[in-house]
C-alpha cells in the first residue's frame, strides 16, 4: 500500500486532526446505519449504493465537491428526501436496528429521533426565542414536565444561553446569523434526538460564529451521533472523528472512502481522496 506523500497543506490539516481529542472508539455502538442507499430524482440516478455506519458519540463529516449528493444523502436519513416531487430511493436506513422506511412507520416519530439543522438559519419569524426553542415540542405534540428547564438546557448546550437569557421574549429574527443558527440547534435539541444531521451549518456564517458552532458540535457529540456535511476541509478535520469522501464523476454520487479523520487526511487509501484533500480539485 502506497503512502501518499505529505504536502504542506496536507500536513497542517493532519496536524489539526490529531491535535483534536482522541478518536472515539466504536464501543458505544452504532447510532445509525445506512445500507445500500440509492436515490433518484425522477429518472436521474443521483446516489449510488452508499453504505455507512455512524457510531454513537461520534461526529462524522461528509466531504466532497459540490453536487455529488451529500445533502441528498443526509436527507434520506431523516426521510426529508421524499418531499421533492419525483424523488425515489432504495436501500435501508437502520435506526436502533429498525428500518426507518419500513411500511407502517410513523415518519414524524423518525424525525423526532433524527434531527436536522439547515444551511441557512431559519428561526420561525412569528415566534420569540423561547417559543422557537420549544417549537419542536408544539409541532410534534410532545409533552414535557418542565418546559423552562428544557429550554435553558437546550440553549446552554447550544452555547447561546448566556447571550439571550435576558431577552427570551425577543423575536428570533433579531439575532445575528451565528446566534440564529445556534438557536436552530437549540430548537433541534429540544425534542431529544439521537442523531443530529447538519447540512453545511456554517457556510452562511462568519468565522467567529463558525468557531462557536464547532465548539458546540464538539460538546454535543458526547451524547448523540452527529453527521455533518461540509465543504470546508479544515472544519472537517477540526470537528469530526470520522470522515467520508463522496464523489460524482458526472453520474450518480458514490462514497469513495471512509475512515477515521486523521487517516483520511494524512494517509488516504484512494488516489481520488488524496487529490481532493490536497486541493488538486474541488
Amino acid at each position, binding site marked *: 500500500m502506497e503512502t501518499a506523500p505529505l504536502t504542506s497543506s496536507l500536513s497542517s490539516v493532519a496536524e489539526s486532526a490529531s491535535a483534536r481529542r482522541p478518536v472515539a472508539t466504536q464501543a458505544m455502538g452504532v447510532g445509525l446505519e445506512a445500507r445500500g442507499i440509492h436515490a433518484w430524482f425522477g429518472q436521474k440516478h443521483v446516489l449510488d449504493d452508499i453504505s455507512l455506519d455512524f457510531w454513537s458519540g461520534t461526529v462524522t463529516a461528509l466531504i466532497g465537491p459540490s453536487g455529488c449528493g451529500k445533502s441528498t444523502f443526509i436527507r434520506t436519513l431523516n426521510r426529508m428526501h421524499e418531499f421533492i416531487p419525483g424523488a425515489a430511493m432504495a436501500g435501508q436506513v437502520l435506526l436502533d436496528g429498525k428500518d426507518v422506511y419500513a411500511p407502517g412507520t410513523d415518519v*414524524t416519530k423518525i*424525525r*423526532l429521533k433524527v434531527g436536522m439543522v439547515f444551511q441557512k438559519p*431559519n428561526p*420561525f*419569524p412569528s415566534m420569540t426565542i423561547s417559543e422557537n426553542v420549544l417549537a419542536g415540542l408544539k*409541532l*410534534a405534540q*410532545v409533552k414535557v414536565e418542565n418546559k423552562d428547564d428544557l429550554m435553558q438546557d437546550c440553549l446552554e448546550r447550544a452555547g447561546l444561553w448566556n447571550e439571550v437569557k435576558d431577552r427570551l421574549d425577543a423575536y428570533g429574527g433579531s439575532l445575528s446569523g451565528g446566534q440564529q443558527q445556534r438557536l436552530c440547534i437549540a430548537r433541534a435539541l429540544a425534542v431529544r434526538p439521537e442523531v443530529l444531521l447538519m447540512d453545511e451549518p456554517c457556510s452562511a456564517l462568519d468565522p467567529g460564529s463558525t468557531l462557536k458552532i464547532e465548539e458546540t458540535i464538539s460538546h454535543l457529540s458526547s451524547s448523540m451521533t452527529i453527521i455533518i456535511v461540509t465543504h470546508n476541509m479544515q472544519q472537517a478535520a477540526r470537528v469530526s472523528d470520522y470522515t467520508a469522501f463522496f464523489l460524482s464523476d458526472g453520474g450518480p454520487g458514490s462514497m469513495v472512502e471512509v475512515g477515521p479523520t486523521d487517516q483520511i487526511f494524512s494517509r488516504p487509501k484512494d488516489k481520488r481522496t488524496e487529490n481532493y484533500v490536497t486541493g488538486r480539485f474541488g
Partner: protein
Amino acid sequence: MTIIAKPQKPWASSRKQRVTSAGVILAALISTYVFVAITPLKGKLAYFAVFFLVFILYDFLYHTRIFGVQSGKDAIARGFVAMGIFVATLPIVSILVTVFNRGSGGLHWGLFTHDMTVNSVNDPINQGGLLHALTGTFTLVAIALVISLPIGLLTALYLTEIRGRFSGPIKFLVQAMSGVPSIVAGLFILAAIVYPVTKSYSGFMGALALTILMIPTIARTAEEVLLLIPNELREAGVALGGTQWRTVAMVVVPAARSGLVTAVILGIARVAGETAPIVLLTGGGDRVNPNPFKGPMGSLPFYIWKSFSVGTPESITRAWAGIFVLLVIVLVLFVCARLLTERRNN
C-alpha cells in the same frame, strides 16, 4: 494630499438640454394659441388636442434634426406615453375633487349619530344622518368576512400547501368567480335561498351575496402571500417532527400574518361599496337594524343610491356626503393595506 472626487452624473440633463426642452414647450404653446385663434376650433378640448399634436410634432422635428430619426420616434413615443398616464390619472383627480366639493357640504357630526327614521331625504341636510347605513355596512361586511375568510384561506392553502391534482382547475375557478357580476351574485342568492325559503329582505342574504364577491379576492391575495413564505420554514417545521397540518398552522400561517391581514383589508374594500346585490336582497330601511336576519338593513351604498334616485338638491347632497364617507373608508383601508405591505417588504 489626496483630492476627493465629487460624484457627478454626466448623463443627467444638462442646463442646455433643459432650456431647449422648455423652449420647445413654449413654442408649442404659442403655436397652439395662434392655431386655435385662426381656425374655428374652440373649447378646452381644442386647446389640449392641438397642443398635444403640435408639441409632438415640434419634439419630433427637434430630435430628428439633432439626433436622427430614431430619436425622433422615441420622442413621439415619450409624448404618447406621457399623455397616457395623464389621461389615466386625470379622472382620479377629478373624482376626488368632486367628492370633496360636493360632499363636504353635507357633512356634519350628526351623520354619525342619527339615522333617517324621523327625517326624509328632502329635509335640510343637517338633519338626519347615516348611522343606519354605517352600522348596516359594518354588519354586512363582518358577516361576509366571517364566511369568506375561512373559505378563501383554505382555498389558498390548498393551492400552496397541498398542491393536489385539482390545483389547476381551482385556480381557474377562483379567477372565474372573481369575474361574476355583482348583480348575478345577488340574483343567485335570490334564486337559491330567498325565493324558496324566506321571501323577504334581510341583511344576511346581502352578506351572502357579498361573500361570493369577497372569496376570490381573499383567496388570490392569500395565495400570493403564502407563496412568498420561504420553503425552508416548512422544512424546518417538518424536520422537527411536525405533521403537515401543524407545520402549516403553527409555522406557515403565523409567518404570513401581515399578508393575510392585507388580504382581509382588500376583501373588505372590494365589497364595502357594492350596490347591486344589496338593492336586490337587503333593501334599505331608515332605521338602525341590529338583526341581520330580519328586515331590510341600511347600508352606505344603498343610502347613496336611494338619495340619488330621489333627485332633489337636498337628497343629492346627502348622496355626495354618503359617497364622501364611503370613500374615506376605502381610502383608510387602502392606506392600511399599503403600509402593511411596505412593512412586510422591509
